[in-house]
Every structure is written in structure tokens, then in C-alpha cells.
């Protein structure tokens, strides 16, 4: 056959095609440069900032070739920072455990017990609320927990309590709203695993003489571990960084790392705020990366999203 005449771009493509290196560069590294510029570079800048390498002069940030650990040093002079870190982890752990305990039975029921023909509909029903803007949902929660709100109305009407209980502004409110916000991220992966679970395994266990409880403990639960781990990661990591929820439903004593960073950046009139904020942010990233690394070592690197 003869060579067909091709437009110029095809000729260029041919040349590209013949080199794997060019292809990899174009396909992978060129787009990745975007992330380098707009995602990783900011972290470098933040790192430099936290090391005192920038100085602010009327709208300008002047680079100064020096490295100082002053911001880090100062950061740990505030005893509150450590407490805030602790509290962030405390909230995140409770949220993770809470979402797990509350959602596992649901995921189990939907994934294992529910006849297949209802699956689609129930999943639709389950996920719909989470497509509503999360701020609106949080405001909805605020109305519920308000002293004059839905929950207290029910409690006082039923005579369970005489005076409205105080929820807003407390740890309880923050944790409950966080659980509400993140529960879907826990259900998704667990449901994903349980739904794919071979039902014959359960029958097999039964024929081997395992009681339903034994079957659950020895077969179902261990097999859903990957889902639980993925869900925990998906819940835990954003939960540690949560800033909006403590801000909206928390009070004076629900300061988290996210709030601290926000305060440093925007609620501090002066010169150190950004440096401190950057330092706190980087410490934060460090913690998260270490945790993620441990997780990846543990699970083998696959993070499944639904």
C-alpha cells in the first residue's frame, strides 16, 4: 500500500507516538505541572513563609534569604495550640467511631439483607440529602439543636427534660454535626464492600455450623475491613481539618486546629499571623501525611471511593 497523505498534526503525532518519553511527558507530566504550580508550590511558599523567608511591606512580600524557626518556636509557646491539635484529633476520632457505629448496621442492611431490586432506589434515597449544600444542612442542624429548636421542643413536650438542654456551642454539637456531615463517606465504602460480598460465603459459613452471630463476627466483619478502613480515612482526614462546623455550631471551647489556623491567618492584626498560620498548617500537613502513610502501609495503597 502507499502512504496516505495525512494532515500536519498527524505527522507531528506520529513523531510523538514513536517516543514513549514524549508521550509520557505530554500526558502525565504536563498536566501534573498544573498541580505542581497551584498545589505543591503553594506549600513550598507556605513552608518558606513559616521559616521567615518573606517580609510584608505594603502589599508586597519581600523575599529575604534567611531561615528562622521563630514561628515554630512561638507556635509552641501557645499552650492552646497543642490543646487544639488534641481536640481536633479527639473530634475526628469520635466522629470516625461514631460514623462507623451508626452507619455499619445501615450499610449491612442495605448491602446484605436488602433484596437487589430495591438497591437502586434505597441508594438514591440514602444519598440525596448529601447533595444539598452542606452549609444549608448545617443550618438545618442548627435549627434542630437550638434551645428553641426541634430537639428541645420534643424533649420538653415529652417531659424528658424540663429546661431546654444546651447543645449548640458545646463539643456535643460539633461532634454530632460532624457525624451527620461525614456519615455518608463512611457508608459508601462499607456498603460497596458488603454489596459485592459473595452471599454464598455466608451460606457456606452457616452450613459449616456457624451461628448467625459467629458468621457475622468471623466472616462478614473481617471481609468488610477494607471498606471500614477506606471509610475511616475518608472521614478522619477531613474531620481533623474541620473548620466550618466548630465555627458554626461550636463555642468558645471548641477551638480546633482548623480554627486556630484560620484565626492566625485572618483574625490576627499584626505581622506574625501568616507565619504562625503557615507553620501550624505545615505541622498539620506533616501529621496527616504520616497518618496517611501509615494507613497506606496498612491497607496497601488502595483508596476506594464508592
Amino acid at each position: 500500500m502507499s502512504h496516505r497523505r495525512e494532515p500536519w498534526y498527524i505527522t507531528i503525532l506520529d513523531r510523538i507516538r514513536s517516543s514513549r518519553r514524549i508521550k509520557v511527558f505530554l500526558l502525565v507530566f504536563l498536566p501534573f505541572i498544573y498541580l505542581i504550580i497551584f498545589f505543591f508550590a503553594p506549600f513550598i511558599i507556605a513552608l518558606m513563609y513559616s521559616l521567615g523567608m518573606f517580609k510584608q511591606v505594603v502589599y508586597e512580600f519581600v523575599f529575604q534569604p534567611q531561615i528562622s524557626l521563630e514561628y515554630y518556636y512561638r507556635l509552641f509557646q501557645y499552650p492552646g495550640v497543642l490543646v487544639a491539635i488534641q481536640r481536633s484529633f479527639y473530634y475526628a476520632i469520635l466522629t470516625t467511631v461514631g460514623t462507623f457505629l451508626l452507619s455499619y448496621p445501615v450499610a449491612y442492611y442495605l448491602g446484605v439483607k436488602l433484596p437487589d431490586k430495591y438497591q437502586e432506589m434505597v441508594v438514591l434515597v440514602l444519598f440525596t440529602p448529601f447533595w444539598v449544600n452542606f452549609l444549608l444542612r448545617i443550618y438545618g442542624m442548627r435549627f434542630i439543636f437550638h434551645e428553641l429548636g426541634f430537639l428541645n421542643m420534643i424533649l420538653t413536650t415529652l417531659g424528658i427534660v424540663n429546661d431546654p438542654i444546651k447543645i449548640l456551642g458545646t463539643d456535643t454539637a460539633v461532634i454530632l454535626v460532624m457525624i451527620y456531615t461525614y456519615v455518608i463517606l463512611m457508608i459508601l465504602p462499607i456498603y460497596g464492600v458488603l454489596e459485592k460480598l459473595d452471599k454464598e460465603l455466608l451460606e457456606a459459613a452457616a452450613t459449616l455450623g456457624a451461628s448467625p452471630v459467629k458468621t457475622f463476627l468471623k466472616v462478614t466483619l473481617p471481609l468488610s475491613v477494607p471498606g471500614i478502613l477506606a471509610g475511616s480515612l475518608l472521614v478522619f482526614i477531613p474531620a481533623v481539618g474541620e473548620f466550618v462546623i466548630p465555627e458554626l455550631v461550636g463555642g468558645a471551647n471548641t477551638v480546633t486546629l482548623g480554627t486556630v489556623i484560620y484565626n492566625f491567618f485572618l483574625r490576627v492584626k499584626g505581622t506574625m499571623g501568616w507565619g504562625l498560620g503557615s507553620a501550624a498548617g505545615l505541622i498539620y500537613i506533616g501529621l496527616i501525611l504520616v497518618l496517611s502513610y501509615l494507613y497506606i502501609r496498612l491497607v496497601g495503597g488502595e483508596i476506594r471511593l464508592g
Partner: protein
Amino acid sequence: MSYAVELENISKSFGEVQAVKNVSLKIRKNEFFSLLGPSGCGKTTTLRIIAGLEFPDTGRVMLNDEDVTDLPTHKRNIGMVFQTLALFPHMNVYDNIAFGLRMRKVPEREIRQRVKEMLEIVRMEGFEKRKINQLSGGQRQRVALARALIIKPAVLLLDEPLGALDLKIRQHMMVELKKIQKEVGTTFIYVTHDQTEAMVMSDRMAIMKDGVIQQIGSPHNVYMRPVNKFVALFIGDAINFIEGTYKDKGVLSTDLGDLKVPELSGYTGKSVILAIRPEKFFLENNIPSDIDNVIEGRVIFSIFRGSFVEYRVELDNGQEMVIFQPYLVAGQKIYEDGSRIKIGWYRDSAVILSH
């Protein structure tokens, strides 16, 4: 004579692994040619190099006397049927078959005509609108074939396309493929690890091992005259080997005594292997009078295989032989286990292989 495909000293490595080593091959026009070998022997790589899906490290690829070594796949006029068939799941039968023509900007009217003809050839009329997942294995096979053939390729490459089929359908498709090849007259290059497929369909075949072509020839030639132990073992159902030292004048000295073998020059004094196909033996009463070699052995067991009886016979030196005896008439004698029998063969039925 011009060839459909010529490979000249093709080599290809993937990292440490050298998949194809210095392969040269000439495939004639309108030939059904098979590349046969165990998995990992480099046959698929060779095929993909012809297709332009891989590029050789060294060597030259010629299609119809034209050097296409650096030409990308879509500019070579080849058709290919893949192991997984790779029928596009998002298109129906018609669109799958028409794909190649559309890429060539053939007018839609002509496409319709040619797809219709093609569907007739592969006997799939009326299936145009079917989705791929609504077809059976054999039907998919035909669609894949039609899709590859419709572009009138200079050569059609088939990469173990029958692998996924049931035995019955596979046997049927083998004959079908052969028929279609005769009908369209296109050069077929067929890659398989199944010697039956190669034997049934090929005009010629090449047996590969570890990236090297061991032997090229017609099925008959390869079966009857394997060049080495590997080919001998790979082709055919079974084969018997007897080791010995070649004496002059067509005599092989073995621990079963001297055996008459084909006369060859240059082998004198060398240690060689004698290879004999199981169906070449005569037993007891059936041994003709002019037979060249007769030895004795004890029947270990026999298997009735319908058209023949398979015997396992232990020779005096302890070696086990496989012997096929045609089962011609009802009531034919089957030798009992443990009975001693004579075994004879002609010297030209055996092949001498070097180590």
C-alpha cells in the same frame, strides 16, 4: 517472487527479556501461515511487530515489498483479529464492521454494500443491529473477522482468536476460517499455541521457542520431519525417543541393539535421538515381512480410543513407548496387559534428531 510479509532479522526486547531473537520470515501471498509455539515464545510479539503495534529494536518489516518498519499501524494495510476480539462494546455489529471503512472515508452507500457482502461471507446476515453483548462466542468471532476483512487488508493477522471458544465451536470455526480464507484469498497469519489449529488450517507454519524460529514448513513436513526434539514433541499427540550412537550406513547403536535408521552423512559416531511417531509401529502379526526393525516389549496397559487403540509398552531396557494401533474391524484383537508383543517399524518412519 514477491511476498506478502517479509521479516528480516527482527529482534525485540522488553526490558531484560528478549522476546524475539533475530527472526527472519517470508510469508507468501494468499497463504494461511501459522506461528505456533508455547506461551511466551515470542509469536504474539512477532505478530504485533507485523501489525505495527510494537516496533522492532533491529531488523526490517516488509509488507508487499514495501518497507513499513517505521510506519504506524493505521497506515499499514493490515487487518487483525485479537485474542479478546476487542469488538467495540459501544457499537452494534454494523458499526463495528463499518469502522475501518469509515476511517478510510469510504462513502456510506458503499459501506452499506460492503458490510452486507461481508456479513454474507461470514454468514451473519440480519445481525446488523445487534449489540455485541447479545452475540454468542462464535458470532462474535465472525463479526471480528468481518471487521478485519472488510478493509481488504494485504494481510490478516489473527492472535489466538479461537482461544475462548468451546471445543465444538472451535473445531467448527477452524474449518470455517479455512474456508473463508480460501474464499477471500487474503494472506492469513495465525498465531496459536494449539498445534491442532495450526495443523488443520495452515498452508505453512513456523514453530517458535524462546523468541527463535525452530522450523518453518508445511504441517506435513513439520510433522513428519521435525528438526529437533522440541518441535517433535510440540507437534503431534505423542512421540517416542530412543537414544543411541550413529554408526555408519544407517545403523544406530542403542541399548536395544542396533537399529536401522535413515542414512545420513556427517553423523557418524555422534550421539543422537531417534524419534518415532506412535502410529508408525506395527504389532505382532501385522508386521510386514520387509520390516526394518523389530523389538520386543511388555504391554503395561491399553486404552480404547475409538479409531485406534493406544498401548503403553515397556521395552527391555525399561523405556516406555506409546503406540497407536488403528482399530479397523470390530472384534480386532486388543493385546492384554502384561502380554509380550513384538513391535516393528520401517527405518524411514523414524527421524534422527541431534541433541
